[in-house]
């Protein structure tokens, strides 16, 4: 492979750091690692593993573009990040790349959820982010799966089998967790509680979306996009069909690559 052809994008998030390797419009490799405290180490590991996945060496990479909440922190001599782009911009570019017809992306991450509206070239039109009381939705979802002894996939699968509709407090993830534990302690079916967990996440995301015009096509990104149960509730609440992006958690990293040199 010729050197300089490949570009890397790193999305350093609150909970996970994602790296993607691309050549033109082709995604060669990707990898996700927990962020932890050492952001640079996490970015290095993600980049190394993504390169391995792509079957190239880090030396063969051209530019590395950073984004995400910690995007600026991974710049530095140890990691040759040449450029960083704001996460909203990366979200728009990434979502548009993954779905050419999309005009709005709802990104449900570990600590923050946001929605971005953009034009046919990925130019930003509008942005909304959750208020602080709704922080940590993704962390909450992961945590609930763990508390119930399930993987996140199993939680979603179980939730889809729910037969009885239960509800959790709308206020915050903390109250919601407390309510979910109570529902379990009252002997409710675990599938119904899993459904309630998926529903409250969708409710918080839908609440946020009322502040923004959702121009079609609406796509969903972020790790929680993989929860079919959450998507089902979200579609009902925002009264629109949404499509889940392929590789939803990599939208930022892909968008970082796509934004390289102003998106060309």
């Amino acid at each position, binding site marked *: 492979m010729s050197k300089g052809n490949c570009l890397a994008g790193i999305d350093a998030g609150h909970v996970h750091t994602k790296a993607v390797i691309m050549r033109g419009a082709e995604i060669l490799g990707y990898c996700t690692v927990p962020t*932890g*405290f050492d952001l640079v180490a996490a970015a290095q590991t993600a980049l190394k593993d993504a390169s391995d996945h792509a079957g190239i060496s880090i030396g063969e990479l051209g530019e590395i573009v950073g984004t995400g909440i910690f995007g600026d922190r991974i710049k530095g001599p140890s990691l040759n990040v040449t450029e960083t782009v704001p996460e909203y911009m990366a979200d728009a570019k990434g979502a548009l790349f993954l779905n050419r017809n999309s005009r709005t992306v709802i990104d449900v991450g570990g600590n923050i959820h946001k929605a971005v509206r953009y034009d046919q070239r990925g130019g930003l039109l509008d942005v909304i982010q959750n208020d*602080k009381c709704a922080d940590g939705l993704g962390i909450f979802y992961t945590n609930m799966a763990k508390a119930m002894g399930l993987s996140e996939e199993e939680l979603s699968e179980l939730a889809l089998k729910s037969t009885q509709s239960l509800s959790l407090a709308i206020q915050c993830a903390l*109250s919601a967790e407390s309510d979910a*534990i*109570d529902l379990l302690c009252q002997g409710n079916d675990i599938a119904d509680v899993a459904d309630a967990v998926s529903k409250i996440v969708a409710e918080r995301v839908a609440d946020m979306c009322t502040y923004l015009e959702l121009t079609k096509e609406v796509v969903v990104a972020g790790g929680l996009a993989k929860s079919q149960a959450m998507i089902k509730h979200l579609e009902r609440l925002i009264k629109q069909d949404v499509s889940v992006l392929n590789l939803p958690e990599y939208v930022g990293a892909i968008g970082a690559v796509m934004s390289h040199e102003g998106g060309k």
Partner: protein
Amino acid sequence: MIEQDYASVKKPLDWKKAKAIVAGVDVGAASSKTVILVDGQPYAVSHVTTRVPKEAALKAMNAALAKAGLTLEKIHYIVGTGRGKAQVTFARETLSEVACGAAGAVRVWGPSVRTVLDAGAQSCKVIHCTEKGRATAFLWNDKCAAGIGRSMEVFADLAKKEVSEIGNIALQSDQFPKLSDFCAVYAQSEALDLMRSNVPPEQVIAAYHHAMAKRISILVGRAGLKEDFVVIGGLAKNPGVMGPLESILKVSRLASKPEWDPTLIPALGAALFADAFYRRQQSGPY
């Protein structure tokens, strides 16, 4: 806090000659505990992770029984307690975790105990009690202060540390930024933001522990603190929270008993009630 499951025999007693074999089962939000008493003496204990409360109750009971070489039919009386007490379907009686926490604490630390802080995974409560271990008053956390114990585990995950080591890391730092101490969601989010502003990990960890200690201290302050003071529940094992808590409250708690895991105390209390109920039943008028 979620920890390793375990079961052990406290004292090698001969239950075959015993008059009263009883058990207390405490189904908590994160873990379920069982204590078996033989003629009033602690015999076997267990501690298992709660996933589905109904299954956890049975799992905790069976773990202790297996360790003790006993079967469920041999137990004369079982009392259930904890948030999931309704799921201890094999219990004769269920009691509040407030009553059980006080009874267990006085049994372990003695009659001088007047205030018990039960700092568990999902709830915190302050219990006042008599020298006989009878709870006289209590204050339960409001919803906004729920989940402090469990949030420690989530926080440890985010920091890529073990929940058992994170409390000691917190003690390594004297100076740290202040976080929201009203809401654990805010505190968690602010801690994540501190990482972005290049604050050293041990300072972020210390800041988070201090915020949680402050939150608990407000509850204790509202309930009123009478000495002697003891702490039970999973957070009692976290020096990063307990240290700041004691200094904010300007009080020292009675030292933890090495022979008693502080998470087992309400289950012990439930077992003590089971013992009393069984004896009363045996001596009662027929």
